């Protein structure tokens, strides 16, 4: 029997692992590994190995649906498109373009994100955002400001060349599992590994130095490291003079952050702070890896800037084994940001409040009167829906009813909309609130390019047909646009990529023909350019070619603990689940291994509450409460508890306070109380 091997990119995290889908008689029959893949070398984690389980899943949406009371009615695409066009047009005509919100998807391809944003802006609506808001918005703001580019500076495989790996706010061993192989390889060659995290995790097992800090005290720790490095004369003087501005301000700003004071604030022993600072500054090549433990704070942008400052004063950028590496969460969250699925940016990080940007896209798109200024963010859209200022939403492949903080408020807000259309692969919590649900294809049922966390743009081919009458997101967007009277006649993803090549300079040379199995790393301005695996070699794309050192000061998290809510709740991920869980919780082999919501709590704290391992507990914040199974561990600090956010009830509790520059909610710190259930 003929068996075709179709190259594809894993649909889960942003590591961008490649593999082949074996196809027999039009069905996906199995996975074959891709040993020469540059980031994964053929490896796949448990999620990647289980990826095919969602393809022909019985829960897949197979036809368009219309709400009928509490029930759903199957309708034709024709009827569905009419309803969508009418619903959006009505809001547009009655309340204006600012009354509509578009949520784009980090799961969808570059081409789909690009077109979705184009559709919104074509009809004059500025409100295009995506769940990148909830994970790495501060990286976009903070790294653009300091280094002039938002993205991992060095490739994943380059971690192996590092001599000191500083991991802060990332549990990569579970959440980006293939990265561990490169960390181990560096360790085998003698590298030192430093991990800062409030929890002892699978990642801290790799650490030579573990810095168990209190949640939300990262700026204090990072400034403390800078203080030691400056005081002991370990800064890279020539690098600072040649490539940066603002060093003097940083010296002044960190003078108070002595190891002893920082130890008081963070709970990390002063000696370990000094040791970590020396290791990082003096190693010939040091890299910082970070993730949502840094970004999901009201001070997320400050955290990112403090990291950039550290790399800059030590000159640990622009060479092999160095760099600042934001580890992104979803297969195409980097690409979604690159394609302008952020309220403040058009494709290619062109600022939405700059008239020049509009001129460029008006010329490129052959249209006039694009809307000036930043739109409302994902979180703001939900807020505005709640008070009746946003009347309609078009949500593609996102589940804000599960993923927004204090999700019960998000659900109420979505219910209050006049019109909600949700385009997804499963009936998610958000889709359940919709007026019209459009069935979409999953990654293996369509083609397109995806950009991994290392800025590697890879082409994923179509392996099989979608179930029922489901269509690719690209196809659906074009049909919706057509029904609204716009000319979106793109025959395929390749033709959209060709338009991206023309309008997004970083992607100028990333054409379909050049995307072979291993992809290309942006910036890649023209068709002869080999791509740019390492950023900032020899300088920065900011004023005068210099990076900006932007000093920041420690501020405590927005929600303090109190006698009523004495525990700090922090949220995160586990190895076998992904984000809001709509895919992994439907994947039998993964769900079997981690079926229930759990709460990790320190042994002594549990003892005081008379809670034993496996007991059910009620966890409550000022916003809501939920039930979880207690897991006792000595890997948690006292007074801190952890819950994974893959289960929809976790976000009933989380804090709605946001960063005032990147508007990311502070998922990592919420005050809560815990009681044993009888």
């Amino acid at each position: 029997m003929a068996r075709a091997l179709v190259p594809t990119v894993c649909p889960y995290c942003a590591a961008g692992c490649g593999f082949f889908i074996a196809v027999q008689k039009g069905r996906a029959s199995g996975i074959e590994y891709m040993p020469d893949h540059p980031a994964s070398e053929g490896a796949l984690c448990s999620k990647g190995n289980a990826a095919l389980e969602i393809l022909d899943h019985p829960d897949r949406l197979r036809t368009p649906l219309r709400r009928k009371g509490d029930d759903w009615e199957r309708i034709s695409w024709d009827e569905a498109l009419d309803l969508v066009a009418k619903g959006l047009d009505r809001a547009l005509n009655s309340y204006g373009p600012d009354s509509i919100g578009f949520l784009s998807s980090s799961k969808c391809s570059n081409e789909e994100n690009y077109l979705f944003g184009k559709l919104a802006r074509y009809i004059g609506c500025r409100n295009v955002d995506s769940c990148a808001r909830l994970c790495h918005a501060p990286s976009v703001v903070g790294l653009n400001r300091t280094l002039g580019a938002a993205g991992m500076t060095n490739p994943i495989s380059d971690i192996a060349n590092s001599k000191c790996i500083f991991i802060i706010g990332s549990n990569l061993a579970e959440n980006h599992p293939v990265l561990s192989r490169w960390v181990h390889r560096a360790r085998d060659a003698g590298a030192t590994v430093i991990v800062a995290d409030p929890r002892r995790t699978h990642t801290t097992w790799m650490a030579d130095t573990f810095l168990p800090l209190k949640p939300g005290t990262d700026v204090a720790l990072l400034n403390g490291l800078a203080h030691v490095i400056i005081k002991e004369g370990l800064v890279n003087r020539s690098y600072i003079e040649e490539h940066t501005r603002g060093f003097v301000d940083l010296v002044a700003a960190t003078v108070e952050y002595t190891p002893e004071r920082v130890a008081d604030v963070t709970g990390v022993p002063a000696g370990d702070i000094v040791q970590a600072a020396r290791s990082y500054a003096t190693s010939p090549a040091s890299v910082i890896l970070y993730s949502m433990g840094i970004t999901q704070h009201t001070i997320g942008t400050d955290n990112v800037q403090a990291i950039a400052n550290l790399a800059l004063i030590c000159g640990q950028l622009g060479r092999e084994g160095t760099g600042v590496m934001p580890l992104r969460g979803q297969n195409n969250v980097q690409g979604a940001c690159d394609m302008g699925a952020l309220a403040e940016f058009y494709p290619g990080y062109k600022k939405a409040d700059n008239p020049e940007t509009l001129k460029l896209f008006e010329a490129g798109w052959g249209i006039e009167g694009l809307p000036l200024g930043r739109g409302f963010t994902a979180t703001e859209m939900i807020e505005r829906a709640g008070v009746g200022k946003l009347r309609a939403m078009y949500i593609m492949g996102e589940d804000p009813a599960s993923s927004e903080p204090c999700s019960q408020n998000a659900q109420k807000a979505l219910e209050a909309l006049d019109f909600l259309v949700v385009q997804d692969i499963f009936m998610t919590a958000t889709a359940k609130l919709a007026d019209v649900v459009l069935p979409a294809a999953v990654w293996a049922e369509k083609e397109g390019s995806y950009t991994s966390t290392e800025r590697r743009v890879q082409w994923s081919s179509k392996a099989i047909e979608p179930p029922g009458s489901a269509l690719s997101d690209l196809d659906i967007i074009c049909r919706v646009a057509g029904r609204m009277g716009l000319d979106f006649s793109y025959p395929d993803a390749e033709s959209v990529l060709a338009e991206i090549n023309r309008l997004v300079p970083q992607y100028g040379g990333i054409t379909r023909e050049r995307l072979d199995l291993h992809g290309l790393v942006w910036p890649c301005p023209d068709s002869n350019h080999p791509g740019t695996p390492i950023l900032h070699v020899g300088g920065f794309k900011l004023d005068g070619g210099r990076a900006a050192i932007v000093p920041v000061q420690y501020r405590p998290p927005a929600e303090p603990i109190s006698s009523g809510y004495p525990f700090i709740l922090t949220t995160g991920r586990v190895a076998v689940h992904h984000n809001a869980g709509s895919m992994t919780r439907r994947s039998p082999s993964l769900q079997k291994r981690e079926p229930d919501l759990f709460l990790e709590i320190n042994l002594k704290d549990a003892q005081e509450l008379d809670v034993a391992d496996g007991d059910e507990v009620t966890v409550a914040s000022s916003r809501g409460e939920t039930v979880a199974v207690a897991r006792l561990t000595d890997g948690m600090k006292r007074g801190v508890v952890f819950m994974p956010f893959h289960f929809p009830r976790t976000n009933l509790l989380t804090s709605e306070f946001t960063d005032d520059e990147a508007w990311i909610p502070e998922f990592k710190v919420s005050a809560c109380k815990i009681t044993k259930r009888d």
Partner: protein
Amino acid sequence: MVCSTGALHKEGDKTAFDVDKCTGCGLCQLACPFGVVWTDKIAHKCDLCSGQEMPTCVMTCPANALSLDFDLASRRARNRAAMLIARGGRA
């Protein structure tokens, strides 16, 4: 060593398994400290994915914890122990 029928036997470095000779006595399962052999009606044993360039478990292991380099694991364990001693026994 414990296999009385020669179903489990040495082929070079590897321990091979001849299914036709197995009586299902279960002694091999008792003898193996790593749980590499298990029995229901007869014994089952990993053949390191014979015929493939690399066993599937090694290929897919994200962290490269599994490897065909038998010295790697002991080198890593030794490094870890040495590090512990260098830091005065503090984990």
